């Protein structure tokens, strides 16, 4: 059973975003890295904003991240989240991968205990139909 109910909006990637979600299907969190200059970027883009190369490597993220910022959502803007309130949405960063941050959820924690700098660990949420979503727990 996934973290949010089944009517939660699912990823609907554009052509340029599809690679990221293909790796997620295999429980692999990867960010685009430029084949020419190595610059990391997220969300996926068809071109390196540093050197304008269109060559793409996919660099695997480590499972360990830190909370860069977070909010405790207490108002439902979509009916799917109502049974989950309050829930934590965070921006996490990877000390080993400068330049990319990820929007995710911090689960399995009292929302009041979340803080900036909190170490968190990746887990994969099976949302069905072969798709997995990266979430983190303290």
């Amino acid at each position, binding site marked *: 059973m996934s973290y*949010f109910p089944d009517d*939660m*909006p*699912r*990823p*609907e*990637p*554009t052509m340029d*975003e599809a690679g990221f*979600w293909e790796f997620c299907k295999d429980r692999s969190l990867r960010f685009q890295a430029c084949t020419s200059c190595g610059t990391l*970027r*997220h*969300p996926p883009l068809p071109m390196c*904003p540093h050197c304008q190369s269109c060559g793409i490597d996919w660099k695997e993220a480590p499972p360990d991240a830190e909370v*860069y*910022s*977070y*909010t*405790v*959502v*207490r*108002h439902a*803007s*979509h009916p*799917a*989240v109502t049974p*989950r309130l*309050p*829930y934590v*949405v*965070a*921006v996490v960063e990877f000390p080993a991968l400068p*330049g*990319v*941050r990820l*929007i*995710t*959820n911090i689960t399995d924690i009292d*929302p009041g205990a979340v803080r*900036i700098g909190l170490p968190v660990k990746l887990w994969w949420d099976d*949302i069905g139909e072969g798709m997995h*979503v990266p*979430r983190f727990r303290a």
Partner: protein
Amino acid sequence: MTRRKACLVGVGQSEFTRWGGIKDRSQFQITAQAIVSAIRDAGMQPADVDGLASFSDDANSAPLMAVALGLPKLRWSSMVWGGGGGGSMGGLAQACAAVESGQAEAVAVYRGLCQGQGRRFGKFSAVRPGASFVNPFGLFSPPSMLALLVRRFMHLYPITELHLAEVALNARANANRNPNAVMHDKPLTLEQYLDGRWIAEPLRLYDCCLETDGACAVVVTTRERAADLQQPVIEVLSSIHGGGPQWGHGPLASHNMPDADYASTNGRGLARDLYAAAGVAPADIDVAQIYDHFSGLVLMALEEYGFCGRGESGAFVESGAIRRDSGKLPINTSGGQLSEAYVHGMNLLIEGVRQLRGTSTSQVPDARVCLVTGGLGVSPTSAAILGRV
């Protein structure tokens, strides 16, 4: 002063209501009526207008608007890219570019939105750029998206909930003097503010703009033409829109902006260029209308537009600086978007004009220079400095 320098000569608006309050007329109709009000306020006729500008994916098509208004010729139609009200002063900037370059003689800048007839901005949207990177995580709506910036801002600097409260309480006090404000007859105390329900921490209910129905328009023409019209001449000293690196994905999609200005409005560089073009400094600003979709961003803007140092906005507002009666920089004197209405910043522009005409319900004595910002924390963001000639 060049004869083609852009001036604001007319303002018009519909009534402002709570979300879904306007049911008997279409959004397009109230927008057209607001534009006609602005044209008549200027002492002009629709046939004098040959340009239309808007922003924020406005649904009220300029070519159709030209038909509805009966414009005999259209020489300018433009819309600024981007979500929310980020481009509100960008719409003004485009109108200024049109009249100053001679491509049009008079441009109406407008924004009409009836959230009851379209979609509520505070709700989930499947069409947001980068939606796949926010929606599966329940980051659906602007308050939660921008709460992430505000949280980090409060982590880095001595900003407290009482400082956020001051922004909301000031807006409400001003709205209580403005009969057109949706919250005109609803006083707000600090206790009520603190008792307000959480939307997305650290933002409570009263930290978030209203969801309303309404339309606003202004008319821009040349200094030469303005001198022959009936209103005091309000010059657009400068107007600008744009953004910094990686803000295009920004808070609405990915939060991968540079660390150095993550907890910001995306306006620091813009502010520098805006002041330089206007030839004025922050100390010359008599009154400001700062885009108040969320209280915390207003604090950031006070710093980025030079009214106090980095991290000092809490102490600045705590001193009473933004209040009409006591402050050195009264802001959001109509009640702003927290308490007057949320017309994507165009109501702030109209209030700026009222201040310089001397007709605000929270008039700042002898106000001659006014800063108005567009939507903060998005790209593009935008701003303008207006001056009473």
